[in-house]
């Protein structure tokens, strides 16, 4: 079945990642991809079929399962780099507010605590275990510097202004 091309942002993606046009849909990448364990996903399904045939592939929640392990890119016989395109779709999805809550929360944590996940509600517990092991207690990290950086890159506005809950 020929792949229909409907995706409106396709030209922009193609310009940035011209190699995606080379993909022959041989499915070699799907052999090494961990995301084949999720229902209905393979790099060929999501990457090729969605990029080239869905009108809004950035809405597909399965793109968030990609861990950027680069295995698909290492094994590709034609040097196509699916990771780059999936990452570009994630970026677009985030700005449009389609990112899963786990991703949005994680980013908020990094920006507000300097840690990648919530720790402060369980800090007493963590520090008790650390104390038992003879380790220093955990302190807050230097988030003023992160704030300065984020003010300049505008990431906070992307989260606050995003459509997601």
């Amino acid at each position, binding site marked *: 079945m020929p792949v229909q091309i409907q995706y409106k942002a396709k030209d922009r993606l193609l310009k940035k990642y011209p190699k995606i046009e080379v993909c022959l849909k041989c499915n070699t990448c799907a052999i*090494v991809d*961990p*995301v084949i*364990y*999720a*229902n209905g*996903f393979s790099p060929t399904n999501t990457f090729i079929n969605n990029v080239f045939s869905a009108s809004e592939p950035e809405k597909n*929640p*399965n793109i*968030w*399962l*990609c*861990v*950027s*392990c*680069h*295995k698909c*890119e*290492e*094994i590709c016989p034609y040097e196509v780099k699916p990771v780059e395109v999936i*990452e570009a779709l*994630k*970026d677009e999805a*985030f*700005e449009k507010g389609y*990112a*899963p809550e*786990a*991703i949005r929360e*994680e*980013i908020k944590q*990094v920006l507000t605590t*300097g*840690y*990648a*996940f919530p*720790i402060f509600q369980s800090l007493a517990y*963590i520090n008790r*275990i*650390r104390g038992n*092991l*003879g*380790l*220093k207690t*955990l*302190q807050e*990290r*230097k*988030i003023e*510097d*992160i704030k*300065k*950086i*984020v003010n*300049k*890159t505008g*990431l906070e506005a*992307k989260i606050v202004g995003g459509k997601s809950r």
Partner: protein
Amino acid sequence: MTAKYAFFKGCFVPVRLPWVEKAAYKTLGNLDIQLVDVDEFTCCPEPVGVGIVDNLTWLAIAARNLAIAEEKNLDILTICNGCTYTLRNTIHKLNENKTLLTKVNEIIADTGHSYKGKAKVHHFVEVLRDDVGLKKLKNSVKRPLSELTVATHTGCHILSPKEVMNFDNPFDPTTLDDFVVALGATPAEYDMKTMCCGWTLMTYGAREGAYKLLGDKLSDMKKAKADCVAVICPQCFYQFDMGQWIASRKDIPQYSLPVFFYLQLLDLAMGANIEEVGYSLHKVQNLSLVAKIR
């Protein structure tokens, strides 16, 4: 001679696996590696979330971390594949693109730091392999783990992209197996060695798929007669430990295959007892394994 490194602990180890941090100080200290605490370090930041949704913020926060190590004239030592991936990709991208480097340095200028392009980042396994050497590692073993068969899981982000990470063959990594042999144990030859642990499936929306993946991987390890799993990345640890514990309550058989961070195995081989390495804090424990460490 003592080698000194800026110790980049990341987030996951100090918060969720502090016993691994303890093992790092102890075992690397025994091998004459001094770990310098750097309180100014923040999250690397985490590559799959922050790295992807805002590349410039990711690079800038990472560049600030690198700059801090540069200012102290120290190379960075990591204990996480994700931190290594973030920091090394940042070095790679900024060192080969002067325009981007200037832009990132403008972004971090207000923090009082500037990335010069001198910082070097080493995963602790690279330090053990390239600086300490297998010979010295072997000589540090007081109690060979000769009854153990160990399934090594190298993880994804230290292997690829190959030209950036430059660690081992992404489809046939052998470094960790050599390290297991150095401790007197036997590496398990299993099929799905380079398949991901399934962390993102578990975290970002496909838990059932993650359980199935874990089940297949653990089953392969069991077939290869593994007594335990060895990892060098905290997310992989959590997935094989907590993930296995959750999955085995419902979706997969009880494999009861404990997982160790390599530094814990090293600590055991250097003579520590099983309680000292934090085993009682693991979710998956197995008495028959404990009997084999003596």
